[in-house]
């Protein structure tokens, strides 16, 4: 695996190309509309506001620092949805890249996810500012916050894996787009995004593990808000989960994705 990655990156213009494609993708997404980059920053804030009103003002949940609690959950979730639902049709929309040359398809996926990562980075910076200046119940930053990096890497691998799997299924069955939409809607409510964690674990104990996002969100809150180490059992479980899916995704890309040029 590591050998594959290094041989992939060393000695060519691949890194440059990934960055170029990611930048263009990012620009296409945000600079095409009137609000521009502001929209990227506004969206998570608006999401937080909506769920805050529903769960805090109306349903009177008693989670402390609920806005931050929502915020970190939602930006992780948004990255996941953008990178999976947003890429189901990637082999179709990015056909122009591989139809006329022997470009590696993996680069198309990586650059799109990289572009989403730029968005995530903006959101995370907003979250950190929010946490420090607005949410005054909690104490400021600590080195433990850096644990968000490996957690994000796991989320990245997981999203990449599902993106590979879904876009390959799309080659064979177009309605995977709709099916996945329903599935993510269900998954959203089965993730501990706005529930109190204890309540979530008590009602649906198995889901902490079955739902791969749940573990990542739980751990991200630990390291960003509770100033504690992540739950390592959960962290390694999620890593294994993501790597397993990635393996399936890579096999599918080789078997089905390779035929995309003739099937789509």
């Amino acid at each position, binding site marked *: 695996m590591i050998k594959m990655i290094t041989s992939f990156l060393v000695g*060519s*213009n691949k890194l*440059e*190309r990934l960055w*170029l*494609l990611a930048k*263009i993708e990012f620009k*296409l997404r945000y600079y095409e509309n009137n609000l521009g980059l502001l929209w990227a920053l506004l969206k998570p804030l608006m999401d937080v506001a909506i769920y805050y009103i529903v769960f805090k003002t109306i349903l009177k949940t008693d989670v402390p620092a609920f806005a931050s609690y929502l915020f970190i959950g939602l930006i992780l979730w948004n990255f996941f949805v953008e990178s999976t639902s947003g890429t189901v049709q990637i082999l179709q929309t990015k056909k*122009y*890249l*591989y*139809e*006329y*040359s*022997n*470009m590696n398809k993996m680069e198309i996926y990586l650059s799109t996810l990289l572009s989403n990562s730029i968005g995530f980075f903006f959101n995370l910076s907003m979250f950190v500012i929010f946490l420090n200046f607005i949410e005054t119940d909690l104490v400021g930053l600590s080195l433990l916050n850096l644990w968000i990096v490996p957690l994000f890497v796991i989320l990245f691998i997981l999203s990449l894996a599902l993106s590979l799997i879904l876009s390959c299924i799309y080659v*064979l*069955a*177009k*309605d*995977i787009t709709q*099916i996945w939409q329903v599935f993510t809607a269900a998954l959203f409510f089965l993730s501990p995004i706005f529930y109190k964690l204890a309540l979530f674990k008590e009602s649906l104990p198995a889901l902490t593990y079955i739902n791969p996002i749940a573990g990542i969100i739980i751990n991200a809150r630990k390291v960003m808000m509770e100033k504690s180490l992540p739950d390592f059992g959960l962290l390694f479980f999620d890593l294994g989960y993501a790597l397993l899916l990635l393996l399936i995704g890579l096999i599918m890309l080789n078997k089905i994705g*390779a*035929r995309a*040029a*003739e099937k789509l």
Partner: protein
Amino acid sequence: MEKEFAIEAKNISKTFHISEDSHNTVKNRLFNIFKPSRSRYVPAVKNMSFEILKGECIGLLGRNGCGKSTLVKLLAGVYPSDSGQIRINGSTMLMNLGVGMSHELTARENVYVSGSVLGLRIKEIDAIFKEIIEFAELEEFVDTKIKFFSSGMVARLAFSIAVKAGADIMFLDEIFAVGDVKFQDKAIKVFESSWIEGKTVILVSHSMEVIRQYCNRTAFLKHGELVFYGDTEKAIELYMEDNQ
């Protein structure tokens, strides 16, 4: 000088599987599990073996539907082959009426993306960027999305990128039909000076003039089979007979 292979193909074949009813949704697949799908197999390329040396210019002849385009796509690595193996030595670029360009991007972005896909570094593209735009005669439309371009403008841009950035192995599928007479003259000049020298070119054309003028060797295809591969004059003769 030692012979270096640009492309080595062994026993390659390609069969297209065309299904006649739309079994391309999950719903359809589930509802029709026990109903066999009506489908046909179209053998497009049948068991070919050959090699192309570095720096050669190879012609590809054959009537419509004989598998030329499929063969080119197999060799360029766009399609995977069903059997056998292809060894490609270098980056490839396939050109027919357009090269891979996104209509959502501007001319500038397309130049950078295509250049990068062809293996150039950003600095190298910076260096040739002006030449590309000048050659395409698109100075005024650098930052215009190419969906607003006329088809001639798109084709000129594609051709200019190919000329200036070019891959190691170029597959040219009827490219001399691009642009007006002035542009064509310019294109042929560049083709002669920069591609015939130093690059491996596979030329698909129905113009005997072009094939005769540039190709050292020519392949003649019929019904997906490689009938002849060698001397250009002989291949043209066979092709002419086939057209009778």
